[in-house]
Structure formats: C-alpha cells, structure tokens
C-alpha cells in the first residue's frame, strides 16, 4: 500500500525535487506515512517545552499565549479530522457537525459542574459523553441517512438549529401547551450564559521529570494526543474493510451495494463515529475552558470554519486537515484587530478554493470530473494509451478459430 511510485524517479535527483514531483496525492501519501507522522507528533509534543525554555531564558513572555494558540490549533485539527471522516471519506454532508461538538461540551459540563450538582469521575464522564453524542447521532442519522444526500444536508443543518434553540431555551423548565414540565428551579443549560465552573479533568498536575504542568500545556497535550489517536484510527480504517466501504459508497453507491456493502449501516457508522469524535473533542474543550457556551459551540459559522479547514487541506487528506487547522487558527489570534473580518475572509476563501481547486492542497478526492468519467473525457496517461495498442496475448490460431466461428470478416492486415 505504501510503496512509493517509482516510475518518475530520476537517478541522482534531489529527494525534495522527487517529493515535489509526486503531486498532491503523492504528498498526501508521503505525509501520512508513519515515518513522517510519528516524528511530527513527537515534535508537536515537545513544542511547549521549547517555548517554556525560551520563556525561562529570555525576556519573551509569550510562551503561555502560544501554547494556548497551539492548543486551539490541535482542537480544530481534531474536529477537521472528525469531519473528514464523515464528509471526506463517506461523502455525507453533515452541516450540523458542530452541534455534536456542542453536545459534547454540554454533556460533560452537566456531569462535572454545579449546574445539576453532578460530579462524575473522569471515566464515567467520558462514558456519558459518548453515550449522549451517540444517541443524538442515531436520532438524526437513522431517519436522515435513508434520504438522498441533499436532504441530509438540510436535516443536519436544521438539527444544528434545533440544538441551539433547545440549549438557549432550556435555562427554564419547558412549557408545552400550558403545562410546565419539571420544577421551577430546573435550569439545564444556563441559556445564553452557558454553564460555568466546569471542573477540569482530575489529572495529576505534577508529572515526573516535568514538574509542575500548567493547565494550558496539559490540555495542549491532551488535544495532540487525541489528534494522534484519531489520525491513527482514521488511517487504519481507511486501509481496512470499513474505510474501503465508506469510500466506495462515496464513489458509487449503487456499485457499492452490488458488492455487498450495506450502505445504510456504513453511512450510519461513519456519521455516528464522526459525531462521537466531535463530542469527545467538545468534552476536552469544556474541561479546558471551564465552561460550555451556546456560541460558538453551536454556531453554524463554526461548522463552516471547520469545513474550510478540511477543504483547504483537501477532502480526505489528514495532513491537509492539520494544515488547514493551523492556517485558520493562528492568523485570527494574531490579527485580533481584524476579528470582525474573520468570517468574511473565511467565506471568500471557501468559495475560492471550491471554485478554483475543489480538491484542496493535498486533496485525494477530486470532486470535479464526476460526469466526464467514463464518458467523453478519457483520462488516459501515455502509458495506458500505449498499452491499448499492444495486441493481447492470444495466439493467432486462437484468433483465427474465433474469427472463423464468428464469421466476422477480418483481413490479415488487420490481424497483425
């Protein structure tokens, strides 16, 4: 699977030049090899220590701030990877994606704060988050995934709105047709204020060798760890039966069904796995920021932001998702003055990328030539064109026999 194509290799050319010549699909393949990913994650884990060192030995006091930015990067990279599973692999347009992240933050906040006076141990909280996001994913997915693709988009968009509506309105007991459900004091979500005072994970703050670990750095490591885990899982899935089935459904649903793929089951699997991944990221975020907010945790703008991260890097590309997350997290932090223009710039970039290069930077999924495939435009490389011309390995005697039997008139010139 990982054998690099050697056809274009020139003797003695520079490795970087060879890398450049691989093209986007090749870059993606190279960047997803363990030889790149493992050092990358080790390096990523060491960055805050380097920042700490710089801070301790110089007058620069921005180290903590940078760790915060990087933690945000890692969080968005996790989300982009999870979105890649449902959109890039399975081809399902989930526009309510960020709602699952939001559900994760609230699910954790409810069992780790004074909102409803529950303080679960970490393992139980993780379980609660997984079960709740999964339940929501099934409630949306089971009806919506039986429908055609466009409807999934609108149902998930509507779902995101419902969730926002519920979160904002459930700071008081619901009243239905004049009947109040629950006691007057019922306040599940804190309304527009959100839930505050969420407890962080109960983790040791001192680690051997490292000494005191600041909050930001700890959560940066947790995000990076979850990112590494997600990418590992995604790569494993992509190269085994489940992932192949997802991509096959994306490519050609009918052919996938004809190969025995239960399309509904695999769609639901992709949809809910991605939702649970987003939910866990939400949980980490709630513990990281000590709160859960309706905005931006349920904002459709946030969904669009994760979309542009994924699409800029390339649909289906995991290194692309990381690149996209960095590209759209760091600048807004550094350009706080222009924060008003954030979504304007993001939307223009999204449109530009889609129109000019829908495959993204490292895209493996071309979403352009669907109609022309197998039709007018033949994507013949010079190799396959040459291969066309060469006669098949059938003996002339065989040929003569068949031609004779079929009664087709073939002149000897044509045969050779």
């Amino acid at each position, binding site marked *: 699977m990982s054998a690099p*194509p050697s056809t274009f290799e020139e003797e003695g050319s520079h490795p970087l030049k060879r890398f450049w010549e691989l093209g986007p699909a090749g870059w993606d393949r190279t960047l997803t090899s363990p030889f790149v990913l493992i050092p990358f994650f080790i390096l990523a884990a060491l960055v805050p220590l380097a920042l700490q060192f710089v801070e301790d030995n110089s007058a620069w006091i921005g180290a903590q701030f940078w760790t915060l930015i990087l933690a945000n990067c890692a969080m968005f990279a996790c989300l982009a990877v999870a979105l890649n599973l449902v959109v890039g692999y399975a081809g399902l347009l989930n526009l309510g994606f960020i709602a699952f992240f939001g559900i994760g933050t609230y699910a954790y906040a409810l069992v780790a704060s004074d909102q409803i006076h529950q303080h679960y141990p970490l393992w139980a909280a993780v379980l609660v988050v997984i079960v709740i996001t999964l339940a929501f994913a099934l409630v949306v997915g089971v009806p919506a995934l039986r429908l055609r693709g466009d409807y999934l988009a609108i149902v998930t968009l509507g779902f995101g709105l419902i969730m926002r509506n519920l979160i904002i309105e459930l700071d008081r007991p619901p009243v239905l047709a004049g009947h109040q459900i629950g006691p007057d004091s019922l306040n599940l979500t804190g309304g527009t204020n959100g839930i505050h005072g969420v407890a962080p994970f109960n983790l040791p703050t001192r680690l051997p060798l490292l000494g005191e670990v600041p909050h930001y750095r700890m959560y940066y490591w947790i995000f990076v760890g979850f990112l590494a885990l997600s990418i590992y899982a995604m790569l494993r899935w992509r190269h085994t039966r489940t992932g192949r089935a997802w991509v096959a459904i994306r490519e050609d649903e009918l052919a996938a069904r*004809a190969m025995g793929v239960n399309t509904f089951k695999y769609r639901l699997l992709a949809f809910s796995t991605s939702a649970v991944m987003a939910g866990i990221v939400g949980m980490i975020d709630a513990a990281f920021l000590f709160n859960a907010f309706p905005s931006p945790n349920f904002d459709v703008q946030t969904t669009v932001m994760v979309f542009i991260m994924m699409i800029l890097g390339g649909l289906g590309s995991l290194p692309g998702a990381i690149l996209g997350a960095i590209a759209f997290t760091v600048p807004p932090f550094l350009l706080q003055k222009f924060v008003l223009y954030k979504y304007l710039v993001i939307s223009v970039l999204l449109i530009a990328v889609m129109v000019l290069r829908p495959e993204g930077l490292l895209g493996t999924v071309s979403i352009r030539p669907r109609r022309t495939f197998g039709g007018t435009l033949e994507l013949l490389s010079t190799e396959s064109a040459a291969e066309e011309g060469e006669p098949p390995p059938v003996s002339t005697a065989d040929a003569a026999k068949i031609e004779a039997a*079929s009664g*087709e008139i073939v002149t000897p010139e044509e045969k050779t």
Partner: protein
Amino acid sequence: MSDRNAVLQIRGLTRRFGGLTAVDHFDVDVNQGEIVSLVGPNGAGKTTVFNLISGVLKPTSGSIRLQDAELVGRPAHRITHLGVARTFQNIRVFPQLTVRENILLGTHHWTRSGMLGSVTFWPSTIRAERAAQAEVDTAIDLFRERLQPRLEDPAFALSYANRRRTEIARALAARPKLLLLDEPAAGMNPYERIEIAGLIRAMRDRGLTIFLIEHHMPLVMEISDRVVVMDHGVKIAEGLPKEVHSNPRVVEAYLGRRAASA
C-alpha cells in the same frame, strides 16, 4: 428446461414502470457451470432482468431463486452475500480507489473485520485482511499481465478495457455462485473481444456459472452453452446458439417483420 442443478431459477418475473411492462412473465434457468447469454434488441429489458436479479430493482411479481434461496424482496447487499456478483453495462468501478482497493471491495461481503478490530490489530481482523489480499491475487490471475502493473493506480487513470477488467476482477473476488456480466465486450476492439471470450470460458472452467448480456452476436455464438432471446420484455426463444440463430422469431425481432417474411 433441464432440472439438473439449476443455480438460478426465474419464474414469472414481471416488472412494470408505470404503464410500461419492461419484463413480462420471464422464465429462465441457469445451470451449474453453464454460460447462458441473454440477447435481444435494445430496450428489450435485458438489463432490467439483471437489475431485478441483483436487487437494484424490485420486481412487480415473480420469483427469482438462487439454489434454495429466494432473492425477491431482499436488499441488494444481501443478494450479493447469497452469491450473486455483477458487472455494469456502463462500467462502475470506484474511480478514486486503486485497482487493488477496487478488487478488495469484492471481498467485502465474505470477510469480517470491524472498526475496533482494525484499530487494535485484532487477530481475526488481520486474518480477514490477509485473506482479502490473497483473494486479490487469485482474482487478477486471469488478467495478470494487464492489471498487475497497475494494481496501485487509481481506477480513473485506467484505460477503458482495464476498467472493464478491474470490474470483472472485483466481481470475481466476491466469490459468486452466479456471475452476471452486462455487455462485457461493449466498446472493446476485436483483439480485446477475443480476450474476453477466452476469459469467460476460463472463468467457467474455474467452476463459475455465468449469465451474460451481450450484443456482439459472433461472441455470443462462440461462447454460450445456451442463448435466451428477449424482445419487449418477453422471452421469444431459448436454446442452443445454432437453434436460436435460425429461429424466425429471433430474426424478426432483430430485423423487423418485413425482413423475416421476405
């Protein structure tokens, strides 16, 4: 109709689209190890029959039995699981997947490996993946010199004929009892047609039962054990290639009434 070892048994198969009856009380048997061709003019309902067998369409009435199992009413993926694999008239390989991955998709229904297994390198998953990879080798055996060098290339970069070969290899990897080939030689040049003829025979010699739709009559005459002729959704003739060839109703269906009576 012979009753020895019928793999596929279709009785009274009917499918209507609104007012149009595309397939009308169609009966056919395909026996173990046979190559049966389904021919007929354009729009006769041949591909509809295939779509009904493979579960892409639901019949209005009738029965389709694969050995002992009734296929009518089952979803397409269950039918594949029971042992029917097919190719499509307009080739449907997965363009962004490599040739190898395309063929691996064929093994999907008979291998068992889940998401947890693949993440944890669970032994049963490893075994399943290894079996699937081994099946790729077996499946491309018949296309060795054609597909072997292109195994890691995405399917969209293949030539037309190689896409066709990939699609057939994918169907073979599904280890079907019954293989449905929808115009395997369409768009092929004479050399490739000869190759396809040899291929179909080779597949039969491996023990497969083959039901195919084909327009190229010389090829049909050459390879078929039996030929079934359809016109306007109705079976109008069935028999050995030679018998069918001289059947006046068949000539009429193909050439029109005047030519037949002349």
